């Protein structure tokens, strides 16, 4: 049972328009999978299927040997950060604490022992000193670190990140990837990214998603070529390489 994620013969359509068609994907323990592909190619849909936000019309998804809904508490998720309201009155520590929430989060306070996980996670991503600042006032990189901390407080087995570095500068990007490299020793990571060249030294598999999926082991592909192509947004060449 070392398969962390197992997708078999899966198809998903919005309004009879197939986004993903007859895909198979197996992710093993401690994999670091880079997910690439054109916009609208189904990357985000794939993540949503794995997290059980949506259910496929055909085929199956298994996460840690169960249906996605049952394993959801073992998944840490880092969304594209620019989705949150900058003016929302919330302190950074409260955003990170959200990672502990569930349907039984009653009353306005958290248990003290739960908060230890929060401090630990904030320490790990080096945002402890920001804990009482308003979340909306942090820089893009700081916010992204906090969202990673939020996904870590529940001690997940799988970490899923949707373009975590889309709007941060390259120094911050490097920092975040170094952080993920450390985390990869303990957990399986799936990361959607535009520039696979940048992450090439961290990942061990690449999934090219464009209605279909083709999974490559790191050794099988030339990263220089893919990264060059990805930077220029010329995905048809990648697709060609992936035989899609």
């Amino acid at each position, binding site marked *: 049972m070392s398969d962390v994620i197992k997708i078999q013969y899966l198809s998903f359509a919005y309004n009879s328009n197939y986004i993903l068609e007859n895909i198979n994907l197996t992710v093993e323990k401690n994999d670091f999978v880079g997910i690439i592909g054109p916009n609208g190619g189904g990357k985000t849909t794939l993540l949503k299927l794995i997290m059980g*936000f949506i259910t496929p019309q055909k085929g199956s998804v298994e996460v840690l040997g169960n249906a996605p809904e049952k394993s959801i508490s073992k998944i840490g998720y880092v969304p594209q950060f620019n989705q*949150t309201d900058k003016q929302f009155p919330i302190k950074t520590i409260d955003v990170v604490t959200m990672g502990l929430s569930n349907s039984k*989060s009653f009353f306005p306070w958290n248990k003290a022992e739960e908060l230890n996980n929060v401090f630990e996670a904030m320490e790990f991503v080096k945002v402890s000193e920001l804990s009482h600042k308003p979340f909306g006032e942090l820089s893009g990189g700081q916010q992204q670190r906090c969202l990673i901390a939020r996904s870590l407080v529940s001690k997940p087995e799988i970490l899923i990140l949707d373009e975590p570095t889309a709007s941060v500068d390259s120094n911050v990007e490097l920092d975040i990837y170094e952080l993920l490299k450390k985390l990869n020793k303990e957990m399986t990571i799936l990361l959607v990214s535009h520039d696979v060249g940048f992450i090439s030294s961290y990942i061990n598999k690449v999934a090219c998603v464009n209605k279909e999926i083709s999974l490559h082991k790191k050794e099988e592909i030339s990263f220089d070529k893919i990264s060059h192509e990805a930077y220029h947004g010329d995905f048809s060449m990648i697709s060609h390489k992936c035989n899609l």
Partner: protein
Amino acid sequence: MNELFSIFSNYSFVQNAIIAGLLSSVACGISGTFVVVKKISYLSGGIAHAIVGGLGIAYFLGINPLYGALAFAVVSALLIGTVKLKMKQNEDTLISALWSVGMSIGLIFAYLTPGYNVNLLSYLFGNILLVSSESLWLMSALDVVIAVIIFIFYRQFIYVCFDEEYSYLRGIKVEFIYILLLIIISITIVVLVQTVGLILVIALLTLPSSIARMFSNTIWKMILISVVLIQIFTFAGFVFSFSTNLPSGASIILAVGVGYLISFFIHNILRKKKIT
């Protein structure tokens, strides 16, 4: 001031008006905060106007209009919540429909009621001087209901408002929390019916909390500041209306509007100072 005090101690309707202002501020400060951060003022406006239907039917049946309003409020919150969650693309149309159809039902039933009752106007535009002791008890009970719900679900409300998708991932019952929030808002509107009326309620629900947001970094601070501001505005509006003999609901809303403008400028000046 002495004169005002003697008026307060001598006339029970003045006492009732001031207590009504205080009771309104609790419900309105809590709900207004969530209306502002979740950006659902149009939806709240829809619920407020739909409630006219409940008032009209209650008039026609000869029961206390506030109970009719309460029933209609909860039903329209459930209706809007369910439709929003089930068919997302039609939300806007549905709110508009509920908005005007509710009002039409209310007007037709009011028209059919023998001996047309002018009091309907006081529910549309509010008349804080007509609040009865019975209404005060109902308002207190509704305040308690709202406060208890918020106390229990405080964190879940914040999480769902801040990041719906992540809340869902954490196993929070997002749809339940969302509908619960709409119910709280609709109950609040019933509390505010006699203070500022259904038509004007949206300003009292959004503006004080928008001011509060400029000066707070947590939701509970925002609620607290909203409650205090609403107390100040309703009292100022009431005093203005009492001394000039102008309609109380409109006076309160004018006080809110002036307060919002002033805070807006103060906030901008403070922000510029912070930058330089």
